[in-house]
């Protein structure tokens, strides 16, 4: 059980690392999908099968598909890859990676420090319990989440639409 957990964790870490360092956006995307799948299996190990499923459908499925569409639409071909390479000079990496390392170390210190509190037995939370909570305790939050999606749709719709005839861009005007 825990072996599977550690295996998937390593896969997830490696995949995300590859996403960040990949030159070509499509390669990055694919590594990201692998990372999400690894995380989904971690969920499964942790006893949250419903969430694992959701992760695969929504994250790996919907969001990544959106990204692929975007790359296709903007036909980011190889010329982007070459441009990327000169962006990623080692000097660019040093500062931020040091910063993130410090953050990571702080987090690790937080998690590891002090005696670990009592950990519950590995019990599985099946989708029924989640469903009950969603409808019962959190019904209001779900309503408002729907409002959230509505706002998302309206914003995406407004920003995504083709420009109207009278909408010459500001740069054109100046």
């Amino acid at each position, binding site marked *: 059980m825990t072996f599977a957990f550690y295996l998937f964790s390593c896969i997830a870490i490696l995949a995300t690392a590859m996403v960040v360092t990949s030159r070509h956006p499509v390669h990055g995307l694919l590594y990201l999908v692998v990372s999400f799948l690894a995380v989904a299996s971690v969920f499964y190990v942790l006893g949250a099968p419903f969430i694992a499923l959701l992760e695969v459908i929504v994250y790996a499925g919907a969001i990544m598909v959106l990204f692929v569409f975007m790359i296709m639409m903007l036909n980011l071909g190889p010329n982007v890859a070459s441009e990327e390479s000169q962006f990623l000079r080692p000097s660019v990496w040093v*500062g*931020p990676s040091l*910063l*993130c390392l*410090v*953050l990571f170390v*702080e987090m690790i*210190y*937080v998690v590891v420090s002090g005696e670990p509190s009592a950990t519950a037995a590995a019990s599985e939370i099946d989708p029924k319990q989640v469903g009950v909570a969603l409808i019962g305790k959190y019904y209001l939050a779900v309503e408002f989440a729907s409002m959230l999606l509505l706002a998302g749709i309206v914003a995406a719709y407004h920003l995504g639409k083709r420009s109207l005839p009278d909408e010459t861009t500001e740069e054109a005007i100046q």
Partner: protein
Amino acid sequence: MLNLLWTIPVFPFLGFLILLFFGERLPRKILALVGAGSVGVSAAVTSLVAYAFITNPPEGHAFHQVLWTWISVGDFHPQIAFYLDALALVMAGVVTGVGFLIHVYSIEYMGTDKDFARFFACMNLFVFAMLVLVLADNLLLLYIGWEGVGLCSYLLIGFWYREPANCTAAQKAFIVTRVGDTVMAIGFFLLVVQLGTLDVQGLMERAQSEWGPASGMATLAALLLLGGAVGKSGQLPLQTWLPDAMAGPTPVSALIHAATMVTAGVYLIARTHVLFELSSTAMMAVAVVGCLTLLLAGFSALVQTDIKRVLAYSTISQIGYMFLALGVGAWSAAMFHFMTHAFFKALLFLAAGGVIHALHDEQNMFKMGGLWKQLPVVFWTFLIGSAALAGIPLIDAGFYSKDAILWAAYSSEHGSFLLWLGAWIGAIMTSIYTFRMVFISFFGEAKNHVHHKPGLTILIPLIILAALSLVAGFIELPHNMGHIQMFSHFMGTAFESAGEHAQTMAEPGGEAMFQILAGVGSLAGVLIAWWFFLKNPASADSLASTPTGSRLHHFWKSGWGFDAFYDKVFVQPFRWISEVNKADIVDGFYSAIAGATQLTHSVLSLTQTGRVRWYAAWVTVGSVMILGALLFK
């Protein structure tokens, strides 16, 4: 009749107001009438008051007239009030009398000047201020008069303001006298704080009762008052302004810098004599200041070339005599010398003015000469004045007043041989420089011809003053020459509290011997002057050209180097500091802060690079710091 007292100062003030507001519009004749007239009326009223005062003197020999209460804070109630006693009467008489004569004189003297109205306005204001000073019953009102005369002397010295030298001289006069006034003001604070009042009579009683003889506080107060007197009367430490004050018109020099203002210091000490009597050190200080000044001024007068500067230094010297008299306690002798000095010094100045006027503003004696034929009246009146100044025995007033002082310097209990010796040498020096002036300017060959002869309005005052210089001496004969002591008896009423014991102490025989010595000294001076400056002038020049002689000559001419010394020690450093700090260091400090703030602004605004990743980096740094703070604090 006595309660007309308050009108005496008011008439000149009215004259001043009329001249100030209507000066431009009135014709010159009326201006002269108003100008001289106001002082004339005031002189008439003074004589009436004098007559009433002498015939039936009010009780306590003093008349006190209160107009209104000026300020009242706690127990301190100075009033605008006038106090008339013998001392004040003499002063008022001289001020109005001589003042009137000088006003008449200056009608013609200033006749051609454009600012005729302004001149008379200032002169009237001066007479008003002097009368307030003289008649004030408390020191604060006296201080108004004191500063008023200072202001008028500033206005009149700088009368011809287009000439920068005059303005500097005027400024110098006002500032130096102001230094003296400030010292006196500190004296007043001391008196108010310690004795609670500045009313002269009240002050005297309280000083005697509370302080008693030889008290440190009395000495301090007296010395502070002496500081003020020294400033106004041009005595030792603060005498540098008087020679430069000759930049003003000659009537001004006659009235202000010879007859009246410069003697204000003498009047102050005389008025507060009780305070001075309390401390012998203060008396000694006054005497020493007087003696030193008369010697110093005497030597300087010897080498001057400008006729008015000679007279200026001689005035300083003669006031030195008065201070000496005050220092040794001979109050009435000092005031007698003041009166006679007012007459003959005013005469000398007016006569010199007549000469300058005639020679078209030529003041250098060596450019005159041979004038006794061309200006006979001026010559004879000038000669009488010089005789009085030199103290030629028996025939003129100067001898009697100076002799009284010489005798008091030796005989009175504050006096000493040294003081007498200094005074005697001074007397000799006086006669030398006086007759040097007479011989150079009136005898020898005529280097300059007279343009126009002075008119009657100049000559009449000269003649009157000449008469006074001769006659004035006889009202106060020394004991061994007759028993006419009208003046000292009259003055005694003002000083009886101090007990006029100085006069009667020494034996009569000794006095005769000193009189002879004084007479011989002055005659010898005339002879020396005749030998050096008329018989063979070359010898005087040869004496002056020797190395030590020329250095001494220059040193004396510049008033014993006081001017240069003050300039180097006070004036230059002050100018340098103010110039350096013109832009106010403290302001620099604040603009530095402003600059620093603006610098931090420009540095901080560099952090707003506009790039998202930079902002994200700062969010991370922020979170790292907060995490660190909370975890490890």
